C-alpha cells in the first residue's frame, strides 16, 4: 500500500489506535538497529528520543564494512546526512540558526509597494533536499509574516547547474549483498537508487516542486560553484530581483559574497540532542526522511519502504512511501482513512 508524505499522520493515528504510543524506528540490520523512538503524547505532541546521536550512528556505520562489505556501507546515509534529516524534520536546530534568521531579517521582507526589489532564495545543491526555507519560516508561500503581513521572501531563483549537480548517479547496487547484510526487506530494493543517490533524488524532486508550486525564476548555467555564482550575479544585476544564496559550503558562500550576492552559510550541528519534543506532524516528516534515506525502516506492526521495486518518477513526485503491514489490524484503518482523504481531496 502506498502513502504520500502529507498523509503519514494516518499511519501514526492507526498505530495509536492499536495502542502503540511508543514507536521505535529501526533499520532492519541489527548492527544499526534502533535509530529513534517516537513517543506519541497528548495534545498532538511527540517526543523523539534519538537512540543514536550523530556520533553513535557514525561509529555504528563504521563497523559495517568489516562485517558486511562496502556496498552495505555505501547504502547507509553518512552521519552528516543523518543530522540533516533531523534538522529538516524540525527536531534539531541549525548550529548557526541565529545568523540565518538575522540574515533573512536583514535582506528579506521587501516592501514591494515602496518599489523594493522582490527577494528570492537560491539554494545550493547540498541543501536542496531538505526544504529548509519552509523549516526556517522564510518560504514565499508559507513563511512567517511580519506585522505588516509581508513574507520574508517572494519566491525562488533556481540554478540549472544546481539541478545537474543533484544527479548523483550512484547506482552500484547489489541486492544480494545487501539482503545478506541487512535482511530480506532489501530484496524489494532491487534496481532502485542506492545510498546517497536517494538524497540526490530528494533534492531533484524538491527542485521540481519549487519550480512548479512556487514563484520561481530558472537561471540557466553550468554546474560548478563558479558558473552558478556568476549566473546569480548576472541575475541580481539584470532581473530587478535580489537573490539570496544559502549553502552548506563555505567556499560557495565566500564566492557569493565576493560577487556581491547576499549569501549565508548553513551550518549543521556536530551532534544532536538526546531528545526533542515536536508535533506529530514533525514526527511524520522524520519518518519520511528516514524511510527514503535508509531505503527501509521498521516500526511496530509496519515496515516503511522509501524505495521499492517499481518506485518510479511519479512516486517520487508525489512523495510516496510503501507500507508493508505486518499486522493485519493496521491495514484496514489505513485503507479506510486514505480512502476518506482521497474522496475529499
Amino acid at each position, binding site marked *: 500500500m502506498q502513502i504520500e508524505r502529507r498523509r503519514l499522520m*494516518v499511519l501514526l493515528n492507526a498505530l495509536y489506535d492499536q495502542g502503540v504510543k511508543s514507536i521505535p524506528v529501526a533499520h532492519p540490520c541489527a548492527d544499526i538497529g534502533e535509530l529513534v523512538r517516537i513517543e506519541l503524547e497528548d*495534545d*498532538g505532541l511527540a517526543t523523539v528520543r534519538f537512540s543514536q546521536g550523530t556520533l553513535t550512528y557514525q561509529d555504528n556505520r563504521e563497523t559495517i564494512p568489516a562485517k558486511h562489505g562496502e556496498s552495505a556501507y555505501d547504502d547507509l546515509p553518512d552521519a552528516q546526512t543523518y543530522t540533516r534529516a533531523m534538522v529538516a524534520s524540525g527536531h534539531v536546530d541549525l548550529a548557526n540558526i541565529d545568523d540565518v534568521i538575522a540574515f533573512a531579517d536583514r535582506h528579506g521582507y521587501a516592501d514591494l509597494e515602496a518599489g523594493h526589489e522582490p527577494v528570492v532564495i537560491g539554494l545550493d545543491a547540498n541543501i536542496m533536499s531538505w526544504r529548509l526555507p519552509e523549516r526556517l519560516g522564510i518560504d514565499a508561500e508559507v513563511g512567517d509574516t511580519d506585522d505588516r503581513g509581508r513574507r520574508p521572501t517572494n519566491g525562488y531563483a533556481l540554478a540549472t547547474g544546481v539541478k545537474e549537480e543533484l544527479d548523483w548517479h550512484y547506482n552500484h547496487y547489489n541486492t544480494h549483498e545487501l539482503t545478506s547484510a541487512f535482511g530480506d526487506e532489501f530484496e524489494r530494493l532491487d534496481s532502485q537508487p542506492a545510498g546517497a543517490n536517494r538524497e540526490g533524488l530528494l533534492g531533484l524532486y524538491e527542485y521540481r516542486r519549487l519550480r512548479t508550486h512556487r514563484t520561481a525564476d530558472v537561471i540557466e548555467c553550468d554546474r560548478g560553484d563558479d558558473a552558478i555564482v556568476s549566473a546569480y550575479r548576472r541575475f541580481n544585476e539584470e532581473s530587478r530581483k535580489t537573490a539570496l544564496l544559502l549553502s552548506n559550503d563555505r567556499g560557495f558562500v565566500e564566492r557569493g559574497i565576493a560577487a556581491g550576492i547576499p549569501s549565508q552559510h548553513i551550518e549543521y550541528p556536530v551532534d544532536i540532542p538526546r531528545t526533542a519534543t515536536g*508535533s506529530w506532524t514533525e514526527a511524520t516528516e522524520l519518518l519520511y526522511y528516514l524511510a527514503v534515506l535508509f531505503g527501509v525502516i521498521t516500526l511496530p506492526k509496519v515496515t516503511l519502504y522509501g524505495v521499492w521495486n517499481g518506485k518510479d518518477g511519479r512516486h517520487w513526485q508525489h512523495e510516496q512511501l510503501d507500507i508493508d503491514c505486518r499486522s493485519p489490524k493496521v491495514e484496514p484503518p489505513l485503507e479506510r482513512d486514505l480512502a*476518506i482523504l482521497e474522496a475529499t481531496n
Partner: protein
Amino acid sequence: MARIWLTNGTPTTPAILNPLAAACDQGFVPDEAQILSNPGVEDSVTAASDYAEHIVDAYRGDAEVSTYNLADETDFRGIIEFYRSAIDAARENDDSVAVDVTPGRKFMSAIAFQAGFRFGADHVYYFHRKAGGYYGQLYAEIPRTATDLIDFTEEL
C-alpha cells in the same frame, strides 16, 4: 434501530465532517444524517453531504444524507423545529439520535445544545480541537490526541 445524526451547516466543510468522522470512529456510524442549511452555507453543505456518505461508507455504514434548508439563518424557530421534529421522529421509531453542536454560529450551537437535552437526544456531541495548527484539516489527518469528541449527555 437506526442511528440518526443531526448537524448544522457552516462555511468550512471539515467542521461539518470531523465530528461525524470522530463519532464513526467511536462506533456511532449513522444510518441517516441530516444537515441544517441556510443560504450562506449552501455550498459547503452540499460538499459535506457527498463527503459524509464517503466517510460513513469507509466505516462500513450506509447513510442517507439529507439537508433541511432555512430561508434565513436567524430563523430561530426553524432551527428549533429542525431538531424537535427529527428527535421526536427518532424517539417514535426507537432510533438512536445524536445532535452535533460543533459547527455553525454560536446561537445555532446554543439552540442545538438546548434542543438536544430538552427533546431527549441520546448524544449531544462537541468536537473539541485541543491543539492548534490543524485548522481546515480532516479528522483522519489530525493527531488523535489533538482532538476529543465530547458527549455532553455523559458529562452533564
